[in-house]
């Protein structure tokens, strides 16, 4: 309460574009970290979803604060959702197929696929 | 295509019939008996635990201690069947008749084996106890003509 500036920023945080962009960036970075760290296809898929959410958060935030037509950002986020759903379905079916044939979903064990 | 719709319609019809049957029964008379408040009368041949029959004239058990029931019992649940012959009495008088009701299978072989009509099934079916011992040693002498 001593610093009205901080309080002010805090109460107004939800109206700042920058806050959302930072959140989006953090989501993206966390997703990237997870993508590198996870050794399984599912783990990588999860991280990929995080990266995509970071991106759609940015889209919506830009749409809300910058674009003349806020629908644009939302529409893009919707498209990303559609793509993400399709991607999940595809990746998982591949994963299941791979698993059934190779008995593992750990990427490092899929070396033989490279040749 | 016709088959497809036919199956839907027929299936739905059978389901509707089923629901109709249960619906009608929602308003039928209940068949359950409110057991603790009401109870059925047992049929004449109901097999409860066995009991000793009383002689109408003397009021004593009819048993003559011939041991036939004890021999007939498959589970050996008639224990301590004992009697003595007092002076001047025409026959033996029963002094002990212990039943281990926990192992009794109510087969009725003992009742059938009795040539003196001294044994019968009681109609006592509300037996409860918290102690196993109550049924391990049931003193039938104390229950002569007891429950009904």
């Amino acid at each position, binding site marked *: 309460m001593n610093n009205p500036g901080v309080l002010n920023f805090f109460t107004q*945080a939800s109206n700042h574009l920058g806050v959302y962009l930072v959140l989006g960036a953090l989501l993206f970075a966390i997703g990237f970290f997870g993508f590198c760290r996870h050794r399984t296809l599912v783990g990588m898929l999860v991280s990929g979803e995080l990266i995509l959410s970071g991106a759609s958060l940015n889209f919506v935030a830009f749409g809300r604060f910058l674009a003349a037509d806020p629908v644009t950002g939302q529409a893009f986020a919707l498209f990303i959702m559609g793509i993400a*759903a399709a991607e*999940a379905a595809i990746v998982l079916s591949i994963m299941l197929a791979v*698993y059934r044939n190779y008995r593992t979903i750990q990427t490092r064990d899929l070396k033989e696929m490279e040749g | 295509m016709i088959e497809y719709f036919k199956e839907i319609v027929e299936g739905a019809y059978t389901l509707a019939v089923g629901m109709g049957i249960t619906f009608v029964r929602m308003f039928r008379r209940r068949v359950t008996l409110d057991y603790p408040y009401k109870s059925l009368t047992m049929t004449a041949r109901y097999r409860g635990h066995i009991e000793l029959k009383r002689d109408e004239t003397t009021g004593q058990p009819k048993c003559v201690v011939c041991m036939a029931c004890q021999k007939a019992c498959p589970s050996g649940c008639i224990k301590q069947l004992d009697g003595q012959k007092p002076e001047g009495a025409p026959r033996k008088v029963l002094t002990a008749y212990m039943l281990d009701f926990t192992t009794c299978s109510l087969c009725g072989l003992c009742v059938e084996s009795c040539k003196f009509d001294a044994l019968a099934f009681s109609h006592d079916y509300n037996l409860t106890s918290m102690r196993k011992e109550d049924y391990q040693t049931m003193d039938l002498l104390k229950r002569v003509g007891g429950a009904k």
Partner: protein
Amino acid sequence: MTIDLSPEKVYPLVSALLFAGVAGVTLLGALVAAASRRLVYSVSGLALSFVGLAGLYLYLQSPFLALMQILIYIGAVCIVIMFAIMLADVVEEKSARSRALPAAIAAFLVAAMLAFALIALIGRTAWMPKAVRVNAGAVQDIGRALLTRFGFAFELISVVLLLAILGALVVARTGRGNNRE
């Protein structure tokens, strides 16, 4: 010092606290998703993160998007991922983790640098909002835009989805078929 409890002070504070909570949940969920060694937790974290994200969308005045986020991401994507984990009976990642510790540190460093760079970039950019707002971004507006301006993209997405479903079916089927012979 008295604390002002008048509604005009409290309401924004509550709202801000909620916002902080939502943002925190988003990041927490994401961290769990990225860092957890168990995939079940990963997906649970992802779901949590999506709930937070839906909250953020609400703050961005896109309630439709928020609900779609829950419906699609939690109702479909997370469930499907979980389903696959269950079917594939995933082995724990423990061994991979211990061996890849340097790699994880490297990944973390790179990710941190990435985040730092992006945040710096955000700070240094002067964002120029458009003064005019064409519409409120309500459901009707989204619907109209999807069927007019983004009509082609919309159709394309549906085709992609259809193909994805068919492809998934084919791939999963053949995998199963081979196995059952």
